């Protein structure tokens, strides 16, 4: 029996000719990642166990992106702990205020991760790099500590769901609509412990940023990872970025999948997830008109340059509705600079938006856009759990940048196709 793409990457990193779903293996890691929330916990565990040295200072990445620029003294203490550990251990990839971007936009952009890699990150959205044909998965702080100490970790080899994409999406339908639709179809535990392997002729019609968005939210379906085949779009993206030699894996023709989900991209509508689960999906036309007080465009899911260009195409020359706070957060400094050069930032400010330095901030209700009781936001982020963006009585509606920007103008959930 053949192997899935994920299984092939895991087998190669475990030094095995083949692996099967359910096998427990120990695999070598190409990159171990942490942020300002999870790294300090990992450092505590690492040091308590008596480890004094990281396995390879060039394969560890620390991105201080969640509460930065530090929102309070406690978060400043966390960053200081991470910074000092990085210095002591000569960790080269430490990204601090001024260079930091949101980790899952930053690592691909800086060429730190690429095709064929096996990556763990103490952040659940580490699954993003599957867009590049890497196996990458979110883990906790103890796993990060183990990875830092040994360069290895244990994995249960996942079975897989095949997601067959066909066709080409219509206007105002992007990667976000694809993944929200999929989560609505299979549920928040529909891919629990499994890989989501995306295939089909529709993949060629998805930009790299669309693929990052889709792989990013595999975790919202419970998935261990989401992964795309490596094609010319990926090769173009990693060219001049990725420093190592890419290793390209393909699923075997007889690889086993527990099920296949077909998505016809041409049939998708702009889609949103209503509170309080990402699987609570509706087409935008079903929920148009729900009043909102806030819009957030950014995050590891949708803070990339193409997301900002889409937002700009809707916001340029118009005004955010009275009573709506529209917060736009480019995910990295490179994206921020590009948006400046293209005039997007100026357009956003003229439209009445607040533009921030890269941070995860509002996505997790950390800072930079926390909501009060009874308030509702349309956001391009990834979770809409109770209290995710502030008070437990506030509400988050997940959407694409196009829907979010249209909603900012309308003051309510709005269909971007009507702007």
């Amino acid at each position, binding site marked *: 029996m053949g192997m899935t793409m994920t299984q092939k990457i895991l087998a190669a990193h475990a030094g095995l000719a083949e692996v099967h779903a359910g096998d427990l293996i120990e695999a070598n890691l190409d990159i171990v990642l942490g942020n300002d*929330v999870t790294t300090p916990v990992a450092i505590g565990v690492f040091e308590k166990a008596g480890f004094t040295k990281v396995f390879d200072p060039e394969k560890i990445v620390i991105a201080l992106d969640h509460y930065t620029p530090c929102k309070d003294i406690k978060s400043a203490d*966390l960053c200081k702990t991470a910074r000092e550990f990085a210095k002591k251990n000569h960790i080269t990839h430490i990204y601090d205020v001024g260079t930091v971007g949101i980790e899952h936009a930053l690592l691909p952009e800086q060429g730190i991760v690429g095709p064929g890699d096996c990556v763990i990150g103490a952040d659940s959205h580490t699954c993003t790099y599957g867009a590049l044909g890497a196996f990458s998965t979110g883990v906790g702080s103890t796993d990060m500590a183990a990875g830092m100490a040994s360069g290895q970790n244990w994995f249960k080899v996942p079975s897989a769901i095949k997601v067959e994409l066909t066709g080409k999406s219509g206007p105002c339908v992007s990667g976000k609509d694809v993944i929200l639709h999929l989560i609505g179809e299979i549920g928040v535990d529909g891919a629990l412990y499994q890989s989501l392997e995306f295939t089909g002729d529709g993949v060629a019609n998805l930009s790299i940023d669309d693929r990052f968005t889709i792989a990013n939210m595999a975790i919202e379906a419970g998935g261990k990872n989401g992964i795309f085949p490596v094609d010319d779009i990926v090769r173009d993206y990693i060219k001049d970025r990725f420093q190592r030699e890419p290793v390209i894996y393909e699923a075997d023709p007889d690889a086993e999948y527990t099920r296949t989900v077909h998505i016809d991209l041409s049939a998708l509508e702009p889609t949103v997830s209503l509170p309080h689960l990402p699987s609570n999906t509706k087409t935008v036309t079903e929920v148009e008109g729900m009043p909102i007080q806030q819009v957030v465009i950014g995050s590891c899911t949708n803070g990339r340059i193409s997301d900002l260009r889409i937002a700009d195409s809707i916001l340029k020359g118009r005004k955010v509705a009275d009573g709506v706070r529209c917060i736009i957060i480019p995910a990295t400094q490179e994206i921020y600079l590009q948006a400046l050069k293209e005039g997007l930032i100026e357009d956003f400010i003229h439209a009445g938006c607040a533009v921030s330095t890269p941070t995860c901030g509002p996505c997790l209700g950390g800072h930079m856009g926390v909501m009060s009781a009874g308030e509702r936001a349309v956001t391009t982020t990834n979770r809409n759990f109770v209290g995710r963006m502030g008070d437990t009585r506030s509400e988050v509606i997940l959407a694409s940048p196009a829907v979010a920007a249209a909603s900012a103008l309308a003051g309510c959930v709005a269909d971007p196709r009507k702007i």
Partner: protein
Amino acid sequence: MFKGKVWKYGNNVDTDVIIPARYLNSTKAEDLAAHCMEDIDRSFASSVQKGDIIVGGWNFGCGSSREHAPIAIQASGISCVIAASFARIFYRNSINIGFPILECPQAAEAIQSGDIISVDTTTGKILDETTGETFEAKPFPPFIENIIAKGGLLPYLKEKLG
């Protein structure tokens, strides 16, 4: 072997309600425990007794990778968590910190809030002393049992690497 009173919750208990992100600026277990479950049950942190047991539905611990979630539950005094299923990162994190969790859909369905139950985490046997019903949870594979026996992933690793 644990015995305690049950705190029962529904499906998809996410890590944002187990420990809201606004408290993640601390790594201290006691700080986290003080706000554990706050966003779905304001009475939990102040009323939970040492040894009590959480029973959840499907996909317990979904969402963020924050290890602060099992740390908060453990530090609040909860002895173990039984659920119909666990989200995978929460599952890993619990094993890695040596915190016992058991997957048992039947127990998760039948056991009610306030029941007194006893749990043998080595055999997976669960007894609801209030109703007299018994259940059997799936045992851990030997590899994972070994990690738990060593007291978590890092002690396991330390021994392996010498």
